[in-house]
C-alpha cells in the first residue's frame, strides 16, 4: 500500500510537526505536498489527487469544512483542530477521523491504522460520513423549539421568537407576548 497525502494547515510549525510525525510511516504514506490556506488546499488537491489529506479546520480565507464542500475530487480526510467544541461531538457521532493539536503520536498511530484497514476494504465509506456530517452542518435550523416553562414544555415557532436573553446559566426565550 502506498498512500499519497497532503498536509493542510495555516501554521508552518504545525505542518512541520505533522510531517515529522508521519515520517515513521514513510513506507506506506508519503506527504507529497502541503497547503497553507483554503484556496491553496483546493488547488493542490484538484491537481495532485492525493489519497489522503490532513485538514486543519480554522484557516484564513475559507475554513476546512468549506474546502471539503468545494472539492470535486474527494480524498480521505483526517481533520485536525486545536479546539472546536461543536465539531468534536459531530465528528464522534459520524465516526469521522480527527486529530487534536498538539497531536499525540499514539492517536496518530490509531488514525493511520484505521485508514489502512478501511482503505483495504471500502474506500468510499469514510467520505460518506463526511458528506453526511457536512450536510448536517448546512441543514436548515429547526422550525420549532422546545422550551421548558415551569413544569411545562412549550413548543415555540421560530418565527414567533422575539429575542433570546442570556442570564446566569440559562438562556431565556422571549416572544412578542412574553
Amino acid at each position, binding site marked *: 500500500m502506498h498512500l499519497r497525502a497532503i498536509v493542510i494547515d*495555516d*501554521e*508552518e*510549525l*504545525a505542518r*512541520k*510537526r505533522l510531517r*515529522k510525525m508521519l515520517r515513521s510511516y514513510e513506507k506506506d504514506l508519503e506527504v507529497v505536498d502541503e497547503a497553507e*490556506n483554503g*484556496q491553496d488546499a483546493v488547488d493542490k488537491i484538484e491537481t495532485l489527487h492525493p489519497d489522503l489529506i490532513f485538514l486543519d479546520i*480554522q484557516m*484564513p*480565507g475559507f475554513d476546512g469544512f468549506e474546502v471539503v464542500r468545494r472539492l470535486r475530487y474527494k480524498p480521505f480526510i483526517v481533520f485536525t483542530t*486545536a*479546539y472546536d467544541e461543536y465539531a468534536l461531538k459531530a465528528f464522534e457521532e459520524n465516526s469521522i477521523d480527527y486529530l*487534536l*493539536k*498538539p*497531536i499525540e503520536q499514539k492517536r496518530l498511530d490509531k488514525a493511520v491504522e484505521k485508514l489502512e484497514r478501511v482503505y483495504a476494504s471500502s474506500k468510499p465509506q469514510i467520505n460518506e460520513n463526511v458528506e453526511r456530517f457536512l450536510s448536517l452542518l448546512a441543514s436548515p435550523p429547526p422550525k420549532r423549539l422546545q422550551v421548558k416553562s415551569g413544569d411545562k414544555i412549550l413548543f415555540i415557532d421560530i418565527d414567533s421568537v422575539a429575542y433570546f436573553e442570556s442570564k446566569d446559566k440559562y438562556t431565556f426565550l422571549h416572544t412578542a407576548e412574553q
Partner: protein
Amino acid sequence: MKKHELLRTFYFCLIITAIIAAGFIYNNPKHWTGALYSSFIFSMCIGYSIHFLMTFYSPRVAKFGKILRHSIFFFLFLIGGLIGSEVGLGIETLTLGYRFSWNDQIPLLLMNFVLSALFGTIAVIYFTLRANVERMAAQLKEKELNEERLIRTKMEAELQALQAKINPHFLFNTLNSIASLISENPKAAESTVEKLSELFRYTLKSAETNLVSVAEELEIVRTYLEIEKVRFGERLQYDITCDDAVLDFMIPALIIEPLVENSIKHGISSEVHGGKIIIEASAADGNCRISVIDNGKGIDNENKAAGFGLRSVEERLQLRYGASSSLRVVPGERTHFLITIPLS
C-alpha cells in the same frame, strides 16, 4: 388614589365603628341597631373626610417642621370631623327622617371632634410607624441586592479575564507550536515556554491586583504578540509606541491585551496574508488614550459589543471610572479601538 389605602381606611373605620357602637350599646342596649347604624355612618364619613384631607395635604406639608406638621394634621382632623359630621347628619336625615336642631348638633359635633382627634392621631402614629418599618425593610433589601450585584460583577470580570486567557484555541495551538519547536529550534521552544508562563502568571495576578502601569500592560501585550508570532510568523507584524507621560499611569490589568487578542483573531488569523497591529498609548486633553489598530475590515460601534473579551473590557472601565472613560470604535478603513481614561 391607591386602592389599598382606601381599603385600609375602611378597615380602620370599621374598628372605630365597633368601639363607638359598643360604648352606645353598653349605655342603652335597646337601641342597638340605631347605635350601630349611626356609628357606622359617622365613622365612615369622618374617616374618609380625614383620609382625603390627609392624602391631599400630607405630601404638601412634608417639608415643614415636625411640630408645625403635626399641628396642621390636628387641625385637619377637626376639619375632617366637622365635614364628616355634617355629611353624616345629612345621611341620617335622608335615611331616617330625623331633624337635628342646632342644640342637638352641638354635643354631637363636640363628641365627634374629640373622637376625630383621638382616632386620627392613633391612625397617623400607626401608619407612620408601619411605613417606616416597610421603608427600612425595602432599603435593607435594596442594599443587600446592590452589594451582591457589585460582588458578582467583580467576580464575573475576574473570571472573564481568566477565561479569555485560557482561550483553548490559543493554548493548544501554542502548545502545538512548542511541540514542533522542540526539535526544530530548541532555543525558541524554551523562550516560548517562558513567555507563555509569563502571560499566565500575569493573568492570575491580575485577578488579585487590579491596577498596573501602562508600561507593565504593554510589556505583557508584547509578550503575547511574541507568542503569536511563533505561530503566525511573517503574517503577524506589530508596532507598540507609548508616550513617556503615560508610562507610569495606572490602569486596570488586562484592558489592552483583549483588544490585541481581538485584532489577532479578526486582523491576522483570518487573513491569508496576515496584517499589522499598531498599539499606541498617549496623553491628550487630560486623558490617557490607548489605540489598538489592525487592518481588519473595520467595525462599527453597534457591533463592537459582540466579542466576549471586548465586553469585559468595557464593563471593567465602566465599573471603575463610570461614564468618564470609554471604549469606542474610531470609524475608518481599518479596525481602530480607542480606550479613553481620565488622567486625574
